[in-house]
């Protein structure tokens, strides 16, 4: 009998112990059909701060607004299921100090985010905590201060920290997307460079639409953009400083330069230069202005993209007769074809994790966004559509953003161009909100690391 009681005791202990350590974990390597239910409690704000923020930012309750940013980010990720705040029983200020875990468990929340916003020396100070509801303990606490206009970024930074704590990988929420905003008829489309937060807010237009602009890409520090502009009807690669607005043409090429990207150290621009019907890949060192020819082949060589260590370049070439993907050393040696499936392959982009190359594939009149290993094996098509191309990686290499166009009749009716994103798993396909039609998206790196 005594032995029996002992056994029960051990069992209970093990159960409790198991429960206490059943820290929440989210697996992001597979499609997630059961997103983790969590509660984002509105950040609490004292009356004085609330009034000041109202003056400054014209927001009724900044605490609620920031928590909405977090909630939306988590929902869009497809990995989390933020619960309806109407079901929350505990007040934000009390929850932030001492959550009543039974209440949160009752609404099936497995994790809880609480916080507090204050105005301190005219700046926004935020403090937030992440709680494991089942284990009944705090698993993360952080505080930081920023200028109040950055209040949306506060929500993004909180999301990044929560995402990292629960998935074990860096987030991608405090980031921006640069893209081409499109308007007007298909035959005379007006295109402008535009930049926005990853969630579609804070859109700014960087060019006026007087000349055609295409394919903008960030440098690693997100301060510069390289893109193609038809300024004075001379299609050339340009460099734009986002802060100062200063633009300059890259190099002095006697013909069209296009398909630019930065090297991973930000010191070079790699691009195509077309002359006499032949496009080859070149680099230009931004400091020394030295130009180097990387490929030398009578076929079309374009869409170059560096591996994150800068040692290799993947690119698009039709030297086999059709568009295929190739990999070479960054000095142009050891060129090797890696795409061998049916159809045409274009727009290769090396993943920031280094292990995959994303691409566009055209096969039997359909367009696919897919990924393959850097040696060409393991091809996986993530999405099929009438027209889509130009994937760009999220900084953590878990999500791809690309653009999609719809069919139109001869009057151009029915045509649209929109940004879409999809997880590397092939799940969680979503349209990304933009003010206008949009194409050529490029994802920044994390703004704060």
């Amino acid at each position, binding site marked *: 009998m005594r032995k029996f009681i002992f056994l029960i005791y051990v069992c209970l202990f093990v159960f409790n112990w198991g429960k206490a350590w059943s820290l929440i974990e989210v697996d992001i390597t597979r499609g997630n059909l059961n997103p983790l239910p969590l509660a984002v409690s509105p950040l609490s704000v004292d009356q004085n701060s609330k009034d000041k923020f109202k003056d400054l930012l014209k927001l009724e309750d900044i605490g609620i607004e920031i928590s909405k940013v977090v909630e939306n980010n988590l929902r869009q990720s497809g990995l989390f299921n933020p619960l309806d705040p109407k079901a929350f029983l505990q007040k934000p200020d009390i929850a932030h100090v001492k959550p009543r875990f039974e209440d949160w468990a009752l609404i099936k929340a497995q994790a809880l985010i609480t916080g507090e916003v204050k105005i301190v020396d005219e700046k926004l100070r935020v403090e937030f905590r992440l709680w494991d509801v089942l284990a009944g303990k705090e698993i993360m606490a952080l505080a930081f201060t920023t200028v109040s206009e950055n209040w949306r970024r506060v929500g993004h930074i909180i999301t990044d920290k929560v995402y990292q704590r629960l998935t074990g990988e860096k987030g991608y929420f405090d980031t921006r997307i640069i893209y081409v905003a499109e308007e007007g008829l298909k035959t005379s489309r007006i295109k402008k460079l535009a930049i926005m937060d990853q969630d579609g807010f804070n859109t700014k237009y960087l060019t006026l639409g007087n000349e055609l602009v295409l394919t903008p890409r960030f440098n690693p520090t997100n301060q510069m953009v390289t893109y193609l502009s038809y300024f004075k009807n001379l299609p050339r690669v340009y460099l734009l400083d986002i802060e100062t607005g200063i633009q300059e043409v890259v190099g002095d090429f006697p013909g069209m330069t296009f*398909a630019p990207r930065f090297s991973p150290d930000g010191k070079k621009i790699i691009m195509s230069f*077309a002359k006499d*019907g032949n496009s080859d890949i070149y680099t230009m060192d931004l400091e020394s202005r030295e130009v180097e020819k990387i490929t030398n082949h009578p076929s079309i060589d374009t869409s170059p993209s560096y591996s994150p260590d800068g040692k290799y370049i993947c690119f698009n070439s039709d030297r086999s007769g059709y568009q295929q993907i190739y990999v070479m050393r960054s000095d142009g040696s050891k060129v090797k074809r890696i795409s061998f499936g049916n159809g045409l392959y274009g727009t290769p982009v090396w993943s920031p994790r280094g292990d995959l190359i994303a691409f566009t594939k055209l096969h039997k009149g359909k367009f696919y966004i897919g990924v393959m290993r850097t040696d060409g094996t393991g091809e996986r098509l993530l999405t099929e559509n009438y027209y889509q191309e130009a994937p760009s990686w999220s900084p953590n290499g878990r999500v791809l953003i690309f653009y999609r166009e719809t069919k139109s009749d001869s009057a151009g009716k*029915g045509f649209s161009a929109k940004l879409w994103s999809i997880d590397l798993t092939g799940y969680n396909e979503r349209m990304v909100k933009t003010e206008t039609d949009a*194409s050529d998206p490029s994802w920044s790196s994390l703004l704060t690391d």
Partner: protein
Amino acid sequence: MSLNKIFRNTLLVFFASILLSACAVKTTGKMQGDVYTGKDTVEYLASGVPDRVFFATNETVLTTASRETLRKQASWLRKNSKINVVLEGHADERGTREYNLALGERRANAAKDYLMTYGISGNRISVISYGKERPVDSGSNPLAWSKNRRSVTVKAN
């Protein structure tokens, strides 16, 4: 060349043209293979001198009709030696943007090279590619795409 051979060649050409015209009729009457043969979008540099040539999907090869058009352009350019031209190369919307920029450049250069073999100085010809950015027909159908795969000769002065 023996008479026999000439006869055989003539016969071959004859059958080939029957076959091709049958093809054209079978599609839309405005395409041969998938090269546009109609006149809907064509403008004229001068009477009888069409301004543009058309290409097959993913191709930069000049067709027989294209070469004829370019010969007319060359003879018009020889007569009007003060006129310079820009060749604008285009692609259809069924390709990736960057590759299509290169393809448009290659198409315009195919036209330029041909004009040059007919004695037009390269100094009088400049080339620009618009890739898929400036279609003439907004439609998403094979006929519209065939009109958009083109090189257009435009007066520069």
